Structure formats: structure tokens, C-alpha cells
């Protein structure tokens, strides 16, 4: 224990060990203060707790509680000697995790800035968030654009570059950002004339926010997109009013027009003097000028975005269609050629293919996709179909089960293709299909003891393995391992990680 009573308090200690002992308070003010110490069950001690008697005492305030939060991994020695304020200052400098400031993608509401700062300086994230909201209110919203700028400029933990570094090369994104910012400016200009209140005060900083957001939106890595989506949608409709609505349904449009019209009518009717109309007219002229000047540019940006998205969608659709045609029509044609000497079989195959093709083209049900209720049922359907079509017995073992979603559907389609491949090419007398739905991943192993092949020597135009299996799995975040050698049989292992929500859903359903 140090010479200074405070030294024991400010010495970093793991919070969990505190439970039994009453701590020695800093300034001799015992009493209820002793119980302020961290309850081991609480994640962090918020500084604004009301049971504090000495709130003005800042070093003490910061000295406690936050020491015990889980971001604090520093182990200091027991201090002796220096005056109390020196150790306060030193502690202030040394607090936090000692690493450079990084956004925390794990613990975030928007960009993970608050959690990052909390970890960096050793506060509780909740504290930082509360402080941020208060600061944002007092600075008339100017803290918000700073937040987004920080999001843009501070790299996420584990990432080497910030979003901003990538955004620098995204000229279209910069154009979009400037376009959006100028659009919002015009809207705010109009709004400011009509109503000199809140919108004017809190709206202008958001011009910067919108520009930053646009850049983040276009350049954020996949994982951050979800958080963005959550954040941008309300802001989009709130910040820009009726000016720019991406999800403009008829209802929202009607409501917005009605609101604008009634607001305008109300303004005119209450003031009833034409003095109001003269600045309004001026602003309208400025706005019209801006629209004439910048309108085509905004339109072009919007059109580019739409075109880009359409092109991407078209390319994906084409790849998907090629895969499906390959899985159904081309497979059947190959089968028909092989069974040309058996007219009955050929008729049967052709009829089945026709049915499948019709249901795809006219009913929208994809061929090769399991119309089963669950993963295990889908696997058994593969077994039935392959046995019926190719006459090769398929031994199925399923472990666990889970409901179908897009990813599992893709896994099943790839598994079907792998099984069909084995039935067609391996020459094996039996194919083993092993399907396991685990808590973290769903796996299918297709194995045969047939002739095998050299995976490196497969020509690129052989679509089965490359597109139907590898491509399909990759598009849904899965992975494929192919073990094969001539004469040794083949084993194709398909693994699809389970999304957190899907796993949680079936956690209970796992028998």
C-alpha cells in the first residue's frame, strides 16, 4: 500500500477482485462512497451515476470505475512517492489500451468511434456516447459531421487503411458526395427561408455529414454496410425532407407533398404580408438557378448509379442463368446422348426436363433448387433425384438439420451438382453423401471411390466444377475443397458458414 492513501485507489486493479474489500477512498470521504465501487456484475461504471456525492472531483471520478472496465489491460506497479496530481496526470496519459486510436467494429452503434475512443482512453463506451450526444446538442449538431469525418478517417481495428484512403480514388463517390451536399444545401436554403427554426440550426452541419456518409457508403467494406444501412435510411428521409427519396413509395410522396403544401399554406396564411414573399422569391430564384446549373449534373450522377447497379444485376443474373441451364438442360442433353439406345428412357428424361424448364420459365421455380422444407430433406431429395436419373445408389448420412435460406439453397445446389458429377464421371458403384448442419457451419461431403481425376488438369470450359460448384459457393460465402487423384476416387467437401441469426434460430431446433 502506498504512502498516499489515493495510491491504492488509482492503482489499476482488475474489477473482479474488488468484491469483498471496502476500498480506501481518495480524500477521506468514506461513507456511501465506499459502495460506489464496481459491482462485479456491471460492465462499467458510468461517471454520471447519481449516488456520487463528489461529482466535481474530476480526477477521482475518472480514477475509478473506468479503471475496471474491460478495455483496461494495463498493469501498473504499485506507486510510491510522487505527489498525487503527478500520478493523476500520469495516469491520465497512460490510461486506455496504449494502442493507436482505432474504430471498434465489434461494439458499435454507427461507426464504432465511441467504442474506439473508449478503448483508447480507457472509458466505458456508454460514457463516451453520452458525452457525444450532449456535445452534439450543445454544438448545434456540429459534432455529428465530426463523427462522420472520424468514421471516414480513422481505420477500423484490424484494417490497415481507413475508408477515406479508399474513397480518395473513388471519383464517382466524390461526385456523389458533392452532389448530395449541394442538393441538401439547396433544400436547407429553402427550408431556412420558410422556417428559421430547428432545420436551419441543425441542418447545415449535416451537409458535411451527408458528404462523408456518401463516401463511407460507397467505400466501406462489406461488414460495415449493414451498420450504414441502418443509419442512413432515417437520415436520408429526415435530413433531406422530400428532396431526395430513394424508397419513394407513393404514400411517402403523397405525405411529403401534403406536408409541404400545408406548411407553405400555413406560413402564408399566418403572416399574410407580402414582405415574406419577397425573400422567398429571391431564394426561389437562387434555387432555380442552382437547379439549372447543377440539375443535369445531379441527374447524371443518379443515372450513373442506376446504370451501374443495373449492369451488376444483369451480370449476376446471366451467371446464375448459365449455371441453371447447365445444371438442368445441358445435363439432360448429355444423358439423352448416353442413353440414345433406350427410347423409353430418352422420352422420360425429355419429359422431366420439359416439366422442369416450364416450371422455371413460367412459374419462377428454379431447377436444381431443392423445394424441400429443410436442409436434410433437401439432401434426401438430391439422393432420390440422382438415383432416379443416373441409376447410381447414393448413401446419405445427415447429422443435424436446419431450415433453408439462400445460402443453404446454394449449398444444396452445389452438392447436387457434385453428386451428379460423381454419378456421371466417376464410374463408382455407390456415392456417399454426408451432410452435417453444425452450429457454425453446414457441410456436405460428396465422396466416391471411382476413377478420380487430377483437379489441376480440368479444362476451364468444363463448367460443372468451376461455375456450378466453386462459383456458386463463393457467391454465398462458402468454400469448396476437392480431394482427388486418378484411381483414388474423389471427395468434394462443401462448407457454408452459417449466419449468426440462422444459427440462433436453429440452435433450439437442433435435435
Amino acid at each position, binding site marked *: 500500500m502506498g504512502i498516499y492513501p489515493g495510491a491504492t485507489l488509482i492503482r489499476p486493479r482488475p474489477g473482479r477482485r474488488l468484491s469483498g474489500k471496502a476500498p480506501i477512498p481518495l480524500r477521506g470521504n468514506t461513507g456511501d462512497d465506499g459502495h460506489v465501487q464496481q459491482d462485479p456484475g456491471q460492465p462499467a461504471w458510468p461517471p454520471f451515476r447519481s449516488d456520487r456525492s463528489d461529482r466535481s472531483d474530476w480526477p477521482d471520478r475518472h480514477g475509478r470505475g473506468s479503471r475496471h472496465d474491460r478495455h483496461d489491460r494495463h498493469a501498473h506497479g504499485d506507486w510510491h512517492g510522487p505527489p498525487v496530481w503527478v500520478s493523476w496526470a500520469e495516469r491520465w496519459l497512460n490510461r486506455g489500451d496504449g494502442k493507436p486510436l482505432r474504430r471498434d467494429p465489434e461494439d458499435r452503434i454507427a461507426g464504432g468511434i465511441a467504442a474506439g475512443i473508449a478503448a483508447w482512453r480507457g472509458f466505458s463506451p456508454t460514457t463516451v456516447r453520452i458525452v457525444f450526444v450532449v456535445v452534439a446538442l450543445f454544438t448545434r449538431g456540429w459534432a455529428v459531421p465530426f463523427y462522420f469525418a472520424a468514421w471516414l478517417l480513422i481505420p477500423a481495428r484490424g484494417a490497415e487503411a481507413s475508408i477515406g484512403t479508399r474513397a480518395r480514388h473513388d471519383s464517382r463517390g466524390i461526385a456523389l458526395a458533392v452532389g448530395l451536399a449541394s442538393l441538401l444545401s439547396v433544400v436547407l436554403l429553402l427550408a431556412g427561408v420558410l422556417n428559421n427554426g430547428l432545420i436551419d440550426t441543425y441542418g447545415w452541419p449535416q451537409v458535411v455529414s451527408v458528404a462523408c456518409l456518401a463516401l463511407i457508403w460507397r467505400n466501406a467494406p462489406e461488414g460495415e454496410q449493414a451498420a450504414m444501412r441502418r443509419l442512413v435510411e432515417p437520415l436520408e428521409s429526415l435530413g433531406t425532407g422530400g428532396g431526395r427519396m430513394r424508397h419513394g413509395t407513393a404514400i411517402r410522396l403523397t405525405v411529403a407533398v401534403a406536408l409541404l403544401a400545408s406548411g407553405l399554406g400555413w406560413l402564408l396564411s399566418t403572416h399574410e404580408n407580402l414582405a415574406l414573399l419577397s425573400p422567398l422569391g429571391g431564394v426561389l430564384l437562387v434555387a432555380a438557378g442552382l437547379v439549372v446549373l447543377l440539375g443535369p449534373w445531379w441527374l447524371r450522377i443518379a443515372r450513373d448509379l442506376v446504370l451501374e447497379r443495373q449492369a451488376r444485376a444483369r451480370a449476376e443474373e446471366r451467371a446464375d442463368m448459365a449455371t441453371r441451364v447447365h445444371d438442368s438442360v445441358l445435363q439432360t442433353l448429355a444423358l439423352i446422348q448416353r442413353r440414345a439406345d433406350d427410347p423409353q428412357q430418352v422420352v422420360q428424361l425429355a419429359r422431366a426436363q420439359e416439366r422442369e424448364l416450364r416450371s422455371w420459365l413460367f412459374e419462377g421455380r428454379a431447377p436444381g433448387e431443392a423445394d424441400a422444407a429443410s436442409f436434410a430433406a433437401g439432401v434426401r431429395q438430391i439422393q432420390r433425384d440422382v438415383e432416379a436419373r443416373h441409376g447410381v445408389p447414393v*448413401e446419405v*448420412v*445427415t*447429422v*443435424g438439420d436446419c431450415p433453408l435460406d439462400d445460402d443453404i439453397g446454394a449449398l444444396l445446389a452445389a452438392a447436387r451438382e457434385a453428386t451428379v458429377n460423381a454419378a456421371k464421371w466417376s464410374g463408382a458403384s*455407390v456415392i*456417399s453423401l*454426408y451432410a*452435417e448442419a*453444425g*452450429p457454425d457451419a453446414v457441410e456436405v*461431403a460428396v*465422396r466416391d471411390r471411382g476413377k478420380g481425376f487430377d483437379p489441376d488438369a480440368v479444362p476451364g470450359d468444363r463448367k460443372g466444377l468451376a461455375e456450378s460448384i466453386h462459383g456458386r459457393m463463393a457467391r454465398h460465402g462458402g468454400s469448396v475443397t476437392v480431394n482427388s487423384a486418378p484411381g483414388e476416387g474423389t*471427395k468434394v467437401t462443401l462448407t457454408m458458414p452459417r449466419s449468426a441469426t440462422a444459427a440462433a434460430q436453429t440452435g433450439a431446433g*437442433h*435435435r
Partner: protein
Amino acid sequence: MSGTGRPRVVLVDDHGLFRSGVRAELGGQVDVVGEAEDVAPAIELIERLVPDVVLLDVHLPGGGGQAVIAAVKNEHPEVRFLALSASDAPEDVIAVIRSGARGYVTKTISTADLADAIMRVADGDAVFSHRLAGFVLDAFAAAPSPADVKPSFDPELDQLTSREREVLRLIAQGYTYKEIARELYISVKTVETHVSSVLRKLQLSTRHQLTRWAAERRLD
């Protein structure tokens, strides 16, 4: 085992055709010393002959395969049972294993594999078909929750080790013991040890799922 080194086998199955088929196919590799088609005659026959291995159909009129095992195992623990079934219903298989069978194979098994399985069981090893391996993985899949497990003296019995899991997964994929040994860089003997250990857990674990299956067959 008999002096010839070939295991003495009794066939218990209610389908005469199946019995004669198996007898004809296995004739070269094992001594089929008797056949029975019902529970009571089977018990009597086994107690009289004391064979090395009883090839036992899970579905028998008059109580099922496990009734035979239950009647014989106390008197003659040296008689080993290999369950044989056309059905894949896990509760049947688990029930017969828990009553004491050393292994389970499906009736679609090839003659060579069946002979191999009989040899293995005669040697005291466990034989899992790929389906049984799947069932066991399924039954032991989730970590046991307190509610799932009845109070047990040995909590180890309620979980598979990761190695056992690996071995079972490969069995479920149709690997032979030799292939598993090569795949996992272990000896065939070690594979057998793992499978025997799984069998022991299967028979002794108090996991709710296993006991429920067994209870449904009025066995526990």
C-alpha cells in the same frame, strides 16, 4: 473362436430367404452353426450353442432383437451381437446398441463387408455402419445441457472427444477403418479403440436423447 479360426455364427432373422442368402454368401468365411426366426427359439439356440457372434435382426416378432440380447447377455457375456437391420430408424438402432450389441450394419451391406464386420465383432471390436455413425453424431451433437443429462457419475460419457467425432464423421462418409487410419495418420488399432470408446459411451451415457430413444423401446 472355434479351432479353425473361423467364428461360429448364429443367424437370427425372421426372413427365411434372407437367412439362406446370408448363409450361402458367408459360408466360405464363417461357420454358420444355427438359425432362428423368433425370440424364444433364438434364446434357446444361443444358450445351447454359445456361438462367437449372433447376427441379429433388429425387428423380430415377439420383442425385437434387444429381447434376445437382454435374455442372453447376463448368462453368456462372451457371446457378441451384431445388429442387422433394413430400417434406418435411429431409435431402433440406438435401442439395440444400448441393450448390448457390439455393432450395427444395414442389410444392404456387401458380403465382404459383412464378413469383415463379423470378424471384427468376434475380436471384440465395435462395428459402426455409416448410418449408425451419423446417428451417434446426431445424438451427441450439441454439448449436453444440464437439462439434457440425467445425473451421471461420469460426465465424460456424455460427450465425444474431438478425435472420436472425427473418426465417426469419416465412418459416416463411408471410409473404411484402414482409410480412416491413413486419413488421420493413426493406426487401424487406434481407430478401433476410438470406435469401441464411442460404443461404450453410447451404451453407458445418460444423455436424455439416448435414454429417451431407449425408453421408447421400453428398455431402460
